[in-house]
């Protein structure tokens, strides 16, 4: 269902979490993964990759980050009409219900609770895809 060369952006301020997520993704077969430490860097990367012709096709972002949060990032991204359909998954903890609800009404494609395993991640990725690319990715 998803191509292994899907361009994925992982955003998290903790290098350990980034490593774990990237690891999971690589095990699932994804090879084109880039990472960012914060919202600003993430937005920049989105822009530059789009310009260079190989745009980001999926975002996995932590919710709780110093500075603008994952929720702020989501809102920023959805402002751009070109990114209305960008699959965006938030990584949260048990206690952040309020923020997740807000993300839901702001167009998040799914959320995943830490700690998670590979199966849950796969499930969420599939859901996000189904939502935005019902015919599959081309």
């Amino acid at each position, binding site marked *: 269902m998803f191509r292994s060369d899907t361009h994925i952006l992982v955003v998290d301020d903790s290098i350990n979490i980034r490593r774990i997520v990237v690891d999971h993704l690589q095990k699932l077969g994804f090879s084109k993964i880039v990472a960012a430490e914060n919202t600003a860097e993430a937005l920049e990367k989105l822009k530059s990759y789009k310009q260079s012709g190989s745009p980001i096709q999926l975002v996995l972002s932590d919710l709780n980050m110093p500075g603008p949060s994952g929720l702020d990032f989501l809102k920023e991204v959805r402002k751009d009409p070109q990114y209305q359909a960008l699959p965006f998954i938030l990584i949260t903890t048990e206690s952040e*219900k*309020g923020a997740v*609800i807000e993300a839901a009404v702001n*167009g998040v*494609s*799914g*959320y995943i609770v830490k700690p998670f395993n590979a199966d849950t991640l796969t499930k969420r990725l599939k859901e996000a895809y189904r939502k935005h690319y019902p015919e599959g990715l081309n």
Partner: protein
Amino acid sequence: MVNYSVFDALFDSVFIIDENRKIIYCNETAAHLSHSSVKRLSRGVIFSDLFNMSEPNLFPLSGGPIGREKASPLQEVIYEIKDPSLIKSTTSLEASRPSKGKVQITIQPFVEGSVKRWTVVLRDVTLEETLHHKYQGQLALREKYIAELQEAKIKLEDYSNNLAEKVAERTFELQNANHRLNAVMNSLGQGFLIIDKKGICSDLYTKACLEVLEKDPSHKPIGDVLNLSSKERDQFNMWMQAVFSESLPFEDLATLAPDNYKHTRGERITLHFFPLRDDQKSIQHIVLVATNRTSEFLAKEALSKEQNHGAMILKMVKYRQKFTAFINSIDKEITSIHNQIKNKFILPNEVNNIYRYLHTIEGEAGLYSLEEIRECCRQIQTFMEPWRQGDSRESNILLPKVLVELEKIKKYLKEFRIENTDLLNLISNQQENSLEISLDHVLAFGKLLQDPRLPLELQTQFLTTILKQPILPCLKFLDDVAQQVATTQNKKLYPIYYSCENVYITPKIYDALLASLVHAIRNAVDHGIEPPEVRKSSGKEEMGTIRINCTNTFYEGQPWIQIQISDDGSGIDVQKIRNLLPIKFPTMNLTSLSDFEILQTVFLPGFSSREQVSQFSGRGVGLDAVKSEVELLKGNIQMDSKPNNGSVLTINIPKITKIENLENKLKLMSA
């Protein structure tokens, strides 16, 4: 000549005929009727040659005198053209003229000058007839339609009535189903309500809502029903928005909703949300199910408490010496600290000591899961913190608080001791400075003392000081047995009163005997102790008493032990035994037996004065087992009893004074 041209324009056919029936005149209509022309007919055609009439004797048309003097009444006759070959049809109109029909005919005589003439008028009523038939036909058809319609109307009325009945039936069934559903949900104690897109609850809800959510939810906003704060409401509204717009699958959103309701009386109410979809599968309503899980919650808490208790016991047993020391020491220390503080005799460095001591206690209490004591210690430390830092300004306020906590510790300790007496006895039976050695090692060592070169004194000392255990712990189990029997028989019993200090026995040797005492106890409760009502009516306490007394005695210069088991029950009915004995033991000679001797028959194998075998006794096996054990040990046993005063079972057994005897006995046992 009369001018017959008055008849020319008439639509009725008029013929004028003479006495020879010759047509003198006819009009156009008559010619038309006759399929001929006026000219031809006026050339001397005989009228009766023209038509066949169905009524030939109207007036003698052919032959015979015409001879009618008066006008004939109008009569309907059927005519037929006699000779169709006469007809020469030159036009299609002429060809379409009917050759048969119905006419109304009348003949009127008159006199012209001196000759008789007759006027024959024929009115063609064929068309009328045809139309009449047609109309009749149509009328009949219409009548038929009307009849059918009326039938249909009746059927429709029937159907509507039926329908009304069916609707009433269905409504009734639906209401029933509704009631059943409601009953089911109410029986589950679950509050059920439906929320619409505006967040308002419908008027369809279960009665359980009144208890579980403490209000009637109909037409209220869900925020009011769940007593949400304004922040929680905003969040819930956003959540509903996400649900109704299905921005994420419902199952992912369900976990983000509030999962419990804060009940004002502390009941635990869980909340579950479900989507209600329409035919197009889009969510139109949200269903909320509120469940009272208080009992589950309490059960879980109780379970957790029990598990903690279990863990605590394990720790207490594992570290028993340490624990016993701990329990004993903090009692004293806390009391002394309490006194110090109460009397305000505290020097600064003492404050520090107290603080550190309590900190240690906190740790130790934690080790043994004594959470309440631990919490008190923590509180005291919190209160004393500023004081410890040198700031004693608040000490007046804090001192009483510290005292309160110390009181609490003492209270918990007291409660703890009471709740766990058995356990504490068990673990503190290990006296200070005690050693655990296996019995086999001790016995092996004892064997060495049999060496004849060693003084006998060594053996005696060994047996009296080393190879001994107090008898009480070996008899404690009898209390549980007694209570068990009493409970099953709805009898009330005090705990067994033991009086066994200073009585020691050699381990193992008396095991069988002591175990057999279970029969004696069972008998005592089953036969001896009366039900509470009976006891009350005979002036006794409702709760029965069983005593076990052990004493050291002497017999023929040798140390013996006496064990007495007594109860304050109804005693043994000697007369009853006298009556039963001949049946059970017919070969016995009873006449010479005293009451006392009769009492001792209870030790006979197979003896039972019970007619029925109960769960506990009556099989006749019991006291004889005790007796045989006593005799194996070379002791003696007897039963005493006073009516209504209870019974006393007395056992006397010798103590082991020589290891040789011990060895023999052990060999016997293992044989």
